[in-house]
């Protein structure tokens, strides 16, 4: 195989992000991330009236960590654990042909499956909505949830599809030339943070990843 397949790693759960530029502006610190997740967990429980039928599925890579954290808060608040899963959307993306081959992460469906469940999809940043479209398709291939909701740490706008989040940690108005950098301790080995860089140049990709 030629250099077409250039996996950055055989472990897709470690995507090896590019360094955050030194001039990036911090918009959420570790404590802000924790508070946002705690609020989202309460919102999920309030909307669902408890944990009945609830399944939380993160979109790799950082969405999976966020899903686990939400699960931990829910268990702490309610005293019962909720099934946590992961949902890889690589195979359902509509931009596969527009960039080099992406490493594939695992989809892990909790033992009870998703049929008839209230599935909360979790991702770090909501942007064009194309990842979530792919996630809805990937989820439909696994079964028929009763309800699908979406929780994101950051909504940066610039939607290209009629998709919205039910639970948002922080609404972050951005220009399309800016880049949002999310860092989580479990994935990146550094303190939780959300930062923005760019915005002065016109090097926007205009594409979701």
């Amino acid at each position: 195989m030629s250099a077409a397949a250039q996996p950055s790693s055989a472990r897709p759960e470690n995507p090896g992000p590019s360094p955050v530029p030194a001039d990036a502006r911090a918009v959420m610190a570790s404590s802000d991330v924790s508070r946002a997740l705690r609020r989202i967990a309460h919102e999920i429980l309030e909307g669902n009236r408890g944990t009945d039928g609830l399944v939380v599925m993160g979109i790799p890579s950082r969405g999976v960590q966020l899903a686990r954290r939400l699960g931990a808060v829910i268990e702490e608040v309610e005293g019962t654990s909720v099934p946590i899963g992961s949902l890889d959307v690589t195979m359902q993306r509509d931009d596969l042909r527009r960039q080099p081959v992406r490493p594939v992460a695992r989809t892990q469906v909790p033992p009870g499956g998703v049929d008839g469940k209230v599935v909360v999809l979790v991702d770090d940043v909501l942007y064009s909505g194309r990842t979530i479209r792919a996630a809805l398709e990937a989820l439909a291939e696994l079964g028929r949830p009763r309800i699908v909701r979406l929780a994101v740490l950051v909504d940066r706008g610039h939607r290209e599809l009629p998709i919205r989040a039910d639970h948002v940690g922080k609404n972050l108005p951005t220009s399309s030339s800016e880049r949002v950098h999310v860092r989580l301790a479990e994935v990146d080995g550094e303190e939780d943070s959300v930062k923005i860089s760019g915005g002065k140049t016109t090097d926007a990709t205009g594409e979701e990843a």
Partner: protein
Amino acid sequence: MRRHLLSSADLSRAETEAVLTTAESMHDVQTREVKKIPTLRGRTIINLFFEDSTRTRSSFEIAGKWMSADTINISGKGSSTSKGESLRDTVRTIDAMGVDALVMRHAASGAAHQVARWVRCSVVNAGDGTHEHPTQALLDAYTLRRQIGGEDRSLEGKHVAIVGDLTHSRVFRSNVITLARLGARVTAVAPPTLMPSGVGPWSKAEGFETSYDLDDVLSGSHGDVDAVMMLRVQRERMSGGYFPTPREYTVGYGLTRPRLERLLDARPDVAILHPGPMNRGLEIAADAADSASSLVLDQVSAGVAVRMAVLYHLLAGADETQPTSTTATTSTEVPA
């Protein structure tokens, strides 16, 4: 840059592991009620087989179809080559139709490499004569990783004995490369007549050992054996007397019931592989082929997942001959 899989040596260790990791995800698709993902929608894959095949051809076809590619089978017997058309004209004709990939099996060693120079589309070598069969080596490695690789799916330091008709075996040639890439040790066992000529320098270069004594190897003289891969005696490629009688071959080099019992006594967790089709009673006894240690059907199952992964890595990404309109970034930098 064109993208082909012609030899196991085309893949670095990282690429080999990436394909096998992707195959784990693809394996999940096999267990679903609806076995269909949209990944290769709009791509066209031609399976061009000039030799008979059950597993490879059908698994490539299933792999393509499960990934929503349009997959078409052409057999050598049913193509215009039977009217005298040259291989070059046949593949260039298919290429001119605008297909994306050609999965090819041919009786001539090096055929896939030659075809890759003639066509624009991707070429996957599905077996060329006695040369290579890279996707078979990948599925063997995948099966071994799941069976004896432990939690971290590692074959580092694992010892695999590959036994039988090595002279004619493309499976052996590809496996030697792939297993070495993944850090496994290989001992090649064959009668002198079926040990490839010039194996000495080759084994030094690739880092495998050789032996003419199967019982000696199975008893652990070259180190405890974690897996035994029995190869088919390829009588269709033989023109003369490689061994006096089939019975004599079986006594010396077959995985017979007594040999299996001795092996299982010493190594209860040993994995037994065979690429198929099996000559039951010749290189492998029915007791061994059907034993709990046999991974023959696991290999078949892995074949679909691994070929899906290979097609994904070859066909799913941007055509590198064209400038891409985007900059690849992680999901964090330019999220959805």
